[in-house]
């Protein structure tokens, strides 16, 4: 009987071997995957086992951590002025995961980042608990407050940049939510989370970065840039030879209408921008053609799916299209869409004499002992237009504010350039239009601020809506706040 016994011994050995192999597979090969699986609660337990690092604006912490009595999560994230800063911070929730900077800089905030290794080791030796690092942002608290208050209970968003560096100064979105209320693991947190998910107004949507709207007449800045860059006109005071009425190309005499009876026949570029002529810019777009318009838009950041601030912005689109649609896209309609950040980028490129800087909001990452681990350096994104053409556009935009549709944005003693926009949307353009205003302010040290403001819908009567009236005061307040703090 011994021969089969030996075989059975081998069989039992194989059973044990199979277990050993499987064990190596699970605990060695797949270990990292399992350890960091998003449903593995240990990840959250570790994340909240100590106070998280903070997000900092103007030297002030806009986040915090409090102790809780939960077994799994010793600490809970708190936010100061949560709704105002939500587009910047996003949220870090014990139960619902994290987003935005909280997610992208998680390793620094939890102190797990490899660059904090030395700190961790020192802390371990000296017996201090592990601490997280801080994320210092580029935001301007006063500008953010102006933006958030300016939007008030209206639905909309503001994005403000420093054109010289690309630093994001304000990033507001309304209606907003309080990330503190979903940070914990209590029943109330869950209730709030469910309410936010079902919210019709999409309070959790970061409209400044992640919602794209038809840019409307503000897009005429890009169309004008394209006209100048491609040499369609040599000067901004040269007649554009545009007819009125103007019919869309390749259509059976379908007219492109202006808003009201405005002097657009054969208007100069300056005049056409001042009164916002659809006919003139529609014709320019048609004359240049889809390819050239698309190229110019892309230089400003359109069609780039990876605009990372580091929170990724939605892609603004200037798509390939047929001639009539392209003419419409030239005045910011049709399938042309842009995020508020995108329009702030357009404005900032013009204000910065043609140089577009990469927008960013994380200035530096800091170790718990305040050592700087990483400093973001301003980076050029592209050069959408030459310096001289940029100055021509500035001239045109300043005319708009001086005596055009944007007079509401005037600031005493400061040069302000701007552009209004009223974008139609919805079926047959029935829905309330989006009111846009983009502008920059300029001092003798260059332009410290470019801002884009969009107000999504309003109870205001339809014909009353014009970017100038609704959005310009918000933009103005943001610019003033930046100018004041710059001094």
């Amino acid at each position, binding site marked *: 009987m011994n021969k089969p016994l030996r075989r059975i011994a081998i*069989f*039992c050995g194989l059973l044990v071997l199979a*277990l050993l192999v499987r*064990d190596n597979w699970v605990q060695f090969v797949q*270990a990292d995957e399992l350890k960091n*699986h998003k449903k*593995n609660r240990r990840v959250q337990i570790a994340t909240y086992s100590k106070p998280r690092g903070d997000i900092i604006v103007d030297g002030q912490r806009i986040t915090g951590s409090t102790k809780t009595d939960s*077994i799994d999560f010793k600490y809970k994230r708190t936010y100061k002025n949560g709704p105002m800063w939500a587009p910047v911070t996003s949220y870090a929730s014990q139960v619902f995961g994290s987003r935005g900077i909280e997610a992208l800089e998680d390793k620094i905030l939890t102190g797990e980042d490899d660059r904090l290794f030395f700190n961790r080791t020192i802390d371990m030796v000296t017996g201090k608990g592990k601490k997280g690092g801080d994320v210092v942002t580029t935001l301007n608290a006063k500008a953010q407050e102006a933006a958030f208050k300016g939007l008030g209970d209206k639905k909309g968003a503001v994005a403000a940049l420093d054109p010289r560096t690309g630093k994001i100064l304000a990033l507001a979105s309304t209606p907003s939510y309080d990330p503190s209320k979903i940070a914990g693991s209590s029943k109330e947190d869950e209730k709030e989370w469910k309410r936010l998910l079902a919210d019709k107004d999409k309070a959790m949507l970061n409209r400044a970065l992640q919602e794209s709207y038809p840019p409307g007449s503000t897009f005429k800045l890009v169309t004008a840039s394209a006209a100048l860059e491609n040499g369609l006109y040599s000067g901004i005071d040269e007649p554009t030879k545009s007819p009125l009425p103007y019919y869309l190309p390749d259509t059976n005499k379908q007219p492109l209408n202006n808003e009201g009876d405005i002097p657009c026949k054969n208007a100069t570029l300056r005049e056409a921008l001042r009164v916002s002529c659809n006919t003139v810019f529609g014709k320019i777009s048609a004359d240049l053609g889809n390819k050239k318009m698309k190229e110019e838009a892309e230089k400003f950041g359109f069609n780039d799916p990876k605009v990372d601030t580091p929170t990724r912005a939605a892609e603004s689109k200037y798509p390939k299209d047929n001639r009539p649609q392209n003419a419409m896209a030239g005045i910011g309609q049709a399938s042309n869409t842009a995020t508020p950040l995108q329009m702030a980028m357009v404005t900032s490129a013009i204000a910065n004499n043609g140089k577009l800087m990469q927008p960013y909001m994380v200035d530096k990452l800091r170790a718990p002992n305040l050592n700087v681990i990483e400093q973001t350096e301003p980076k050029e994104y592209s050069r959408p237009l030459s310096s001289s053409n940029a100055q021509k556009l500035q001239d045109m935009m300043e005319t708009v504010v001086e005596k055009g549709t944007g007079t509401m944005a005037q600031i005493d003693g400061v040069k302000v350039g701007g552009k209004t926009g009223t974008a139609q949307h919805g079926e047959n353009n029935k829905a309330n239009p989006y009111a846009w205003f983009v502008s920059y302010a300029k001092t003798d040290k260059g332009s410290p601020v470019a801002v884009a403001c969009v107000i999504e819908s309003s109870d205001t009567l339809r014909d009353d809506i014009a970017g100038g009236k609704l959005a310009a005061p918000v933009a103005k307040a943001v610019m003033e706040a930046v100018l004041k703090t710059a001094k």
Partner: protein
Amino acid sequence: MSSATTTATTTISTVGPPSRRNTELALLVFAVVIPCFAYANVGLALSDEMPSGMLGYGVGLGLLAGVGHLVVRKFAPYADPLLLPLATLLNGLGLVLIWRLDQSERLARTAKFQGFTFQASAPNQLLFSAIAIALFVAVLVFLKDHRILQRYTYISMVVALILLVAPIFFPGKNGAKIWIVIPGLGSIQPGEFAKIILAVFFAGYLMVKRDALALASRRFMGLYLPRGRDLGPIIVVWVLSLLILVFETDLGTSLLFFGMFVVMLYVATERTSWIVFGLLMSAGGAAVVGTFEPHVHVRVMAWLHPFDVFTTGQGTEQIAQSLFAFGSGGVFGTGWGQGHSDLISFAANSDFIFATVGEELGLAGTMAMLLVYGLIVERGVRTALAARDPFGKLLAVGLSAAFAIQVFVVAGGVMGLIPMTGMTMPFLAQGGSSVIANWALIAILMKISDTARRPAPAPAPSPDAEMTQVVRP
């Protein structure tokens, strides 16, 4: 003819192998000290101080091991020296693991949340371990020779059948009907005892029938096909194990019994064809039942897609949690008391106790633990090889194979190698029936090995030799 050659070639010598009892004692010291260190480790990790029960625990485990050792010295002096220390080590570590999970605030809160009181399991488990050692001692003292068991072949069959069938009449727990509930006393898991009793029956039955089963067969395509009527017993056992699967929804037990039977049949008849038949039948049966029996089907699905529960919300997340525990342990583990294996929540200290080993001791500790189990099986099979009587061989190999299959099924289940079954890790897991039955199993194996290694009594003076004696002057 010289008498010297005769002595040299004979396998039964009067000198015999050394008893190795001192080796066993030395190993036992390690088997007691290691769990004590583990116990201290848990206490230090959880509350930064030596656990208060430390002394009691150490003395308790030491006493149990000591009593076991002394009895072995007296009643089975030639028994295998490894089995007792290995089982003691596993039992000791199991107690530490259970105690460690008793300290889990999370489990306590979950229990409270679900409306029942959380009870510490370690004290009970220590009591069960003591009872188990008592049974171990009883087997060694009263079972003079394992061949006595052969007399009870058919009684064993009846008892085993009763034990297997009984749970059908008791309410199931969590989908599996594997308990006999005695009101006021608790519940026992008869499957654990049936394992041993069935091995006795199979060994006795096969020893008698092996020739018929082995020789009366036709050769077909290189395989010896048994005659139709000889197929009877295997079909009966197969049907029985399928019935267990269907009525008690216990995948593990049915796999265990069928596997044990096929192994013993193969050893008894030396016919590979039985293995082929066995595999085909179990595969067929498992496939059919796995598809149609809802409880088993759920387990198979949970095995194939362990993480689906998070998206669909259906089924149990135990498998996923168990895999997380193993993965989070990594190569070296988190250390005693520092893991979060209690996230498995339900059955964390019984069916899933091995996940705690995985997380807190890591790949290194888990492999060591598996090798300890492997060693026990190896010593068991070695005992079978050394045994001189066919009944002892069959019984030893049956018990060893059953032990190996059980370890494979449980560890494989929690590591996601095979579908989860309702069995417990021998010696580690919380549960009285399991620890008692497995100590009895070890006792029987030690008794067989004692008989096998015991030197034969000095041959009686041969009358022939006397007749040819040279008449001295």
